[in-house]
């Protein structure tokens, strides 16, 4: 249901990012640009084996290299625990993955550190290893952890309703199996951390992050310090893509090296090391089964997901929880069954790739539904319109209600603009069209007890303001978005606002820029802070204008009464007279937002994308000719940025579904470089048509919801469905690399 749009003066216009001039002139500082007096450079000696026992470590030759200032061996990492259950350095003398950190060195230059690292002699006894999650859970497989019986690090089983009963009532039941492979975030900025632990009990860290607060928390816990004694300086973050949500070994190692050397230390991934330092998502095998009535109503979904968890449990636990919830995100079902198992292997502990596991699951589920629709004699557009969720829908567990929902509007508008009816089923051979649909929460309370963002704003007598927030901006333009929201409330321009952020000593609390929570959560906090500041000005303004405070309008740098719009006073005058008077009030607003629910989010966004592709049957190369993409963002705070978010996610989704694979053999990454790990270049990108759908969410700031990870959920399935449409057969494994496509073409002949 469409809600009335407020008449706004700032929100909804295109605003260039406030820090943009710094970024185009080279003034922006990233962690690798930090220069500190006496700074040392770190290098890590890593296991070349997937699974091995360390028999001996000899650092004597390395220690003798002039310029080497500190060396860490597993003894130094004793009692330092990171992530969920991982020792920083292997204390039991067993390395469990290629790249496992064994020794770390700090020296006066990167070259000296690298040279010394080569002189460290480690003797290994190679142990049998597990590199496939399916093998790892078989009876008789070697056991990687005492506590993880059968190498299952975590298992989630969740039935909602009575799936067996509902399946028995279905007319059509379909089963499919899909695989998504290991991949890497490939941010422009490589992994890097500068730590200064040279003052006892005080640690300062410069590193790219999506969440300074969580980094601060985990680093403080690892070193048994008070959180306030760990200061995170975020600077700029060169891309996040769900991959910078938790501290990794290099953060802790640079701190330990710094403490040992008594000097600041920079530790950075050198070239190909980027790929073995921190991988993103691991392999996942999806077994899907669903049932519908013959009139096309989807009734039940069963999903069995087996994850390659890597050697230690990390973010994959969150992915199981999220993917189980999202079975109910798009379709009202009578019942569902979910099983998620995390299998330990001798791969690096897996984290997230862009899409947070949800976009990857939707690659499987979206194709499965495409096939089910065909069995029901429908196409996926009809199926989506017949079965999709609508406003007012509540999930069976009662935790989530959709207060705004533009899913069907997205499907209809995208299908119309892409010309679906004229194309679907009518294209020549090797041309294909496919649709993907998605839902995405704005924020995810339940991962932590709360989902809080806070903001402070102070207004100066020149009518300008400084906005303090703790939300990192890793490119999504969230700082500018917050300035727009505050400016709308105060009736000034976003360019009048300085956004101050990136230092845990001064930032208000913010869980961070992940789970698509920025616009919604920090946006609501910012709006609340700006309203608080405005309330502090209202008394003076009302007395100057001789009207009621409720009648005040704040717009275009002016304040006036709704009753008498011609009598305007400048905003700056109101601020000036509030401070420079006997009242002497310094205007400083504060606000915070936390979902009122026990778990979950008040707002979900929705999207639909249609991909048009051409497949070359001889080379197997898929060309994406065009993407038509819609997204229900509630309200576009900054429309061009919304488009930019959609563009980036189409790139990333296309990249993951067609190109990206960390090819693993015996635990080794076989393509650890940006030449061999392919991503699309400019000439490979399709034309993109954007459709911004505005449902004006009742709980969003000015009606806004996320656009940070919703679009990518649609992209992979849309392209995969289009490729299946072009080939007349389906490829069940991602990426749809040329060799897989050629194989499918040959098998299909």
């Amino acid at each position, binding site marked *: 249901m469409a809600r009335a749009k407020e008449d706004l003066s700032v929100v909804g216009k295109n605003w*260039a990012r406030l820090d943009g001039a*710094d970024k185009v002139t*080279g003034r922006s500082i*990233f962690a690798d640009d930090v220069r500190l007096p006496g700074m040392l450079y770190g290098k890590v000696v890593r296991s070349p084996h997937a699974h091995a026992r360390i028999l001996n470590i000899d650092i004597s030759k390395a220690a003798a290299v002039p310029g080497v200032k500190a060396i860490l061996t597993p003894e130094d990492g004793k009692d330092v625990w990171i992530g969920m259950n991982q020792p920083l350095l292997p204390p039991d003398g067993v390395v469990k993955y290629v790249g496992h950190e064994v020794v770390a060195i700090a020296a006066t230059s990167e070259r000296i550190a690298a040279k010394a690292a080569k002189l460290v002699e480690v003797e290994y006894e190679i142990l049998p290893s597990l590199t496939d999650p399916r093998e790892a859970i078989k009876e008789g497989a070697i056991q990687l952890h005492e506590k993880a019986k059968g190498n299952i690090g975590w298992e989630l089983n969740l039935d909602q309703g009575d799936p067996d009963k509902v399946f028995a009532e279905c007319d059509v039941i379909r089963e499919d199996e899909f695989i998504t492979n290991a991949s890497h975030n490939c941010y422009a900025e490589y992994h890097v951390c500068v730590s200064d632990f040279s003052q006892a009990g005080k640690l300062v860290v410069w590193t790219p992050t999506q969440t300074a607060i969580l980094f601060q928390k985990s680093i403080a816990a690892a070193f048994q310090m008070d959180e306030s004694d760990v200061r995170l300086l975020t600077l700029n973050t*060169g*891309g996040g893509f769900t991959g910078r949500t938790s501290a990794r070994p290099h953060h802790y190692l640079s701190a330990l090296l710094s403490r040992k050397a008594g000097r600041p230390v920079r530790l950075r991934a050198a070239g190909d090391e980027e790929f073995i330092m921190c991988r993103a998502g691991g392999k996942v095998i999806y077994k899907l089964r669903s049932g519908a009535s013959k009139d096309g109503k989807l009734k039940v979904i069963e999903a069995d997901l087996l994850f390659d968890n890597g050697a230690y449990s990390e973010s994959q636990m969150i992915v199981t929880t999220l993917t189980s919830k999202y079975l109910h995100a798009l379709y009202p079902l009578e019942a569902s069954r979910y099983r998620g198992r995390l299998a330990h292997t001798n791969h690096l502990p897996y984290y997230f790739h862009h899409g947070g596991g949800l976009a990857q699951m939707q690659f499987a589920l979206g194709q499965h539904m495409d096939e089910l629709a065909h069995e029901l004699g429908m196409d996926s557009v009809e199926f989506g319109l017949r079965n999709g969720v609508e406003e007012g829908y509540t999930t069976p567990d009662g935790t989530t209600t959709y207060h705004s929902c533009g899913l069907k509007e997205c499907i209809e508008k995208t299908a119309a603009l892409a010309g679906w009816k004229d194309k679907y089923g009518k294209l020549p051979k090797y041309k294909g069209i496919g649709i993907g649909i998605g839902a995405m929460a704005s924020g995810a309370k339940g991962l932590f007890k709360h989902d809080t963002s806070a903001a402070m704003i102070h207004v100066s007598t020149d009518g300008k303001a400084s906005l303090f927030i703790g939300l990192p901006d890793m490119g999504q333009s969230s700082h500018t978005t917050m300035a727009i929201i505050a400016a709308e409330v105060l009736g000034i321009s976003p360019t009048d606002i300085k956004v101050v952020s990136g230092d845990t000593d001064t930032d208000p609390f913010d869980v961070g820029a992940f789970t698509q929570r920025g616009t919604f959560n920090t946006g609501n906090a910012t709006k609340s802070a700006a309203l608080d500041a405005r309330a502090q000005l209202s008394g003076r303004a009302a007395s100057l204008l001789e009207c009621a405070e409720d009648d005040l309008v704040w717009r275009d740098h002016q304040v006036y009464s709704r009753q008498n719009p011609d009598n305007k006073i400048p905003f700056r005058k109101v601020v000036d007279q509030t401070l420079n008077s006997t009242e002497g009030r310094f205007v400083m607003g504060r606000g915070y937002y936390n979902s009122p629910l026990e778990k979950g989010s008040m707002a979900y966004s929705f999207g639909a994308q249609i991909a048009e592709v051409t497949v070359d049957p001889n080379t197997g190369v898929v060309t994406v000719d065009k993407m038509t993409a819609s997204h229900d963002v509630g309200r576009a705070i900054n429309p061009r940025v919304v488009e930019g978010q959609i563009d980036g996610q189409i790139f*990333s989704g296309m990249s993951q579904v067609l190109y990206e694979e960390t090819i693993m053999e015996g635990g080794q990454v076989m393509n650890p*470089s940006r030449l061999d790990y392919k991503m699309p*270049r400019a000439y490979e990108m399709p034309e993109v048509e954007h459709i911004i759908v505005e449902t004006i969410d009742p709980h969003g700031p000015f009606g806004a919801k996320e656009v940070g990870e919703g679009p990518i959920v649609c992209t992979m399935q849309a392209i995969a469905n289009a490729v299946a449409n072009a080939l007349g057969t389906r490829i069940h494994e991602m990426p749809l690399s040329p060799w897989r496509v050629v194989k499918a073409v040959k098998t299909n002949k």
Partner: protein
Amino acid sequence: MAKQLITLTVNGDEHELAVAPYQTLLEVLRDELGLIGTKRGCTAGSCGVCTVNGEKGEAVLSCCALAVEWHGRSVTTVEGVQEGTELHPLQKMFLEHGAVQCGFCTPGLIMSAKALLDVNTSPTEQDINEAMAGAICRCTGHIKVKVAIREAAKLLRARELQTNEAAAGAAGVNNGAR
């Protein structure tokens, strides 16, 4: 290895530097001259973030160029693109059209695009694609970057036209005086 003395002109400033034969142009720019606007990425020529412009305005991957080879030559980095206190049309259009997100690859993108527009202000789609083929940008997916380059080309063409008209006008006055 013994260091060699080189002369390197960067953004119009001449520097005398002692560099080791293995030092790259990127290292010299960032670590010796403090010009950290040029970013360090893969250091293997595959990501494009370290792109600078050489003497003829050509795009150069500074991570793959040895500093000693640049003795007596000049380079332009992203710090040298701004025109006085004003942004260059490319910088303006990158900003205006949302071609900047995280900003880490932006200096490299701007220098790659500048190498194209300095010699061709009427680039075709193909020209732009070729000029940007060495760059990776996960945030923007290149889409708004291409828009920004096309828009900057328009501004530069308008500027050329103005310059030409002014020159023609000046020539006309001279002719009249003759």
